[in-house]
């Protein structure tokens, strides 16, 4: 009996022995006796445990036999065997989203040509990022500094109780293109407000699993000053597209390949994972990557047109937990 993958492996060894002892002692009972007639709860429980264990082992063995049979059939048939069944994954079963972007969609292309990022994507503006924290930061300043090394042309400023609405005109005056505010809770960053400056959209993210550079295993040296490449994965819907553009516009348009650094925003099931790596091509089929830099995951909470204005802003999209989290196969980005 292989108990490793067996579902009842959580039953301890002692209990199994006890159950077996019980079973042995109960074998002397008349055959018309059923387990539910034992009045002693502990004994009854032990015997039931053993029976359920035996049953589940039986089921497991049947399954293995079926598998072996199928494998033999497949080998026997050789090339004509029916194709292997693809296992169902959440990505496979995802509910089709009508706002998924077609690569050739003209309307989308037109929108993207005229939205707030068109200036950046046409090469007219260079990104300049201002990173700051919430009031009285305790643990996030270090994280902000690391972010500033990852994003070229980024500056960290202390937030001394200033209101965001007053910072924004000053930033615009000094030609900043992005305002990034890292919110913190008990010395741990837990939120990010990313505001594109000359009246661009504002995105509010929930940030989780933040790992600073010293917590990385086997990391390399510090990131250099070269502009990294950007990889954006899996941003399929319209909303995903706009978020993708928002994140891409943080980095300068022309990456310096000499630096061999790459920043990745990977969207999986509405979680955006950020990683920063250094890569090296060993041959044309193999590349090695080494993680430097901080890592964190983002989850979009709201996207608002215009600069930061939580009361009177016009929200393009807001996470409504009761509606959107009800279906496990439906994702927004």
């Amino acid at each position, binding site marked *: 009996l292989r108990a490793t993958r067996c579902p009842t492996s959580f039953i301890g060894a002692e209990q199994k022995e006890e159950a077996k002892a019980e079973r042995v002692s109960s074998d002397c009972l008349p055959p018309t006796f059923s387990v539910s007639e034992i009045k002693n709860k502990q004994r009854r429980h032990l015997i039931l445990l053993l029976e359920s264990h035996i049953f589940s082992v039986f089921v497991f063995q049947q399954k293995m036999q079926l598998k072996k049979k199928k494998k033999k059939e497949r080998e026997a048939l050789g090339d004509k065997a029916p194709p292997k069944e693809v296992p169902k994954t959440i990505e496979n079963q995802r509910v089709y989203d009508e706002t998924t972007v077609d690569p050739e969609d003209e309307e989308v292309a037109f929108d993207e040509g005229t939205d707030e990022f068109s200036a950046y994507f046409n090469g007219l503006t260079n990104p300049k990022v201002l990173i700051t924290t919430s009031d009285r930061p305790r643990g996030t300043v270090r994280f902000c500094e690391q972010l500033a090394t990852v994003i070229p042309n980024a500056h960290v400023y202390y937030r001394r109780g200033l209101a965001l609405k007053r910072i924004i005109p000053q930033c615009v005056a000094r030609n900043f293109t992005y305002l990034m505010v890292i919110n913190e809770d008990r010395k741990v960053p837990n939120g990010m407000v990313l505001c594109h400056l000359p009246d661009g959209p504002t995105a509010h993210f929930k940030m989780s699993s933040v790992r600073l550079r010293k917590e990385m295993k086997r990391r390399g040296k510090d990131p250099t000053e070269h502009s990294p490449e950007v990889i954006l994965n899996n941003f399929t819907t319209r909303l995903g597209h706009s978020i993708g553009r928002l994140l891409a516009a943080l980095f300068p348009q022309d990456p310096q390949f000499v630096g061999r650094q790459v920043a990745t925003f990977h969207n999986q099931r509405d*979680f955006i994972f950020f990683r920063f790596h250094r890569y090296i091509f060993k041959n044309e089929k193999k590349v090695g990557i080494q993680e430097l830099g901080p890592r964190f995951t983002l989850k979009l909470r709201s996207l608002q047109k215009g600069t930061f204005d939580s009361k009177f802003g016009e929200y393009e999209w807001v996470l409504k937990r009761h509606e959107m989290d009800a279906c496990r196969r439906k994702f927004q980005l």
Partner: protein
Amino acid sequence: MQHDDVIWDIIGNQQFCSFKVKTKSQSFCRNEYNLTGLCNRSSCPLANSQYATIREEKGQCFLYMKVIERAAFPSKMWEKVKLSKNYEKALEQIDENLIYWPRFIRHKCKQRFTKITQYLIRMRKLVLKRQRKLVPLSRKVEQREKRKEEKALIAAQLDNAIEKELLERLKQGTYGDIYNFPVHAFDKALEQQDEESESESEEEEEEEDEEEEEEDVGKREFVAEEEVEESDLSDFEDMNKLRTSSDEEEEDEEESSEEEEEEEEEMEVEMKASKSKGKSPANGSVVRKKRAYVEIEYEQETEPTSKSRTTS
């Protein structure tokens, strides 16, 4: 007759007072009408028949006074006077109302009034600043999200995705001429095609080769030496840096993919070593010493054939 001393004897020292809070060093009085907040003979509102306090209600300060004449009427015992909002005027009011009262009570009343106004000012200032809104978290929801995130991370297979993307970019040529791998990729792709469709292509190539040989006999081609050397050099360099690692990797590839971590470790050790040695692929001087490797000779042989194919 109010026996203040008797009262104090009872509640202050010997027996129980329900307003008294005792700590190690000091006792406090929780009575709302207490002037100082401490449990003293002079600050106890029960043990003093003539007493006064300042109390604040919704931003308004009041002076409460108790005299012995009204000790028999508990509901009318405390006289309440509204103080002016102006600080100096209020102080004058206190003085005026508590004229001929003991110095202690007057002084303490004014002190208390000052403290109260100070904290009222601070409250008003804070309201104007940005308020921190506390949003309650639901533990279930947070746990669910955490779980989903972990599963999504596993499903994402980030390292593989990043590597795939980088290799695709290399194939599409976004890196330009920095890496000279594309030649090899082209070679290998062609080789694969040849293996698939065997006879016809071979015949064609043989014919073409023959034709070209005949053509070449007459014609003269000028091939720049520098170009050849550069491509050779870059091949050398890349092979140099990664020669040891590639050897080890060939061994590793045979092992299962679960040992990718070990591979990464080795890669990183070599990457560090290689980084310490050379900087970028365009460094020619390091390489010239190491030309006599067998592998490099092999590559030299294949290159002319590739050139013939491209020209045809």
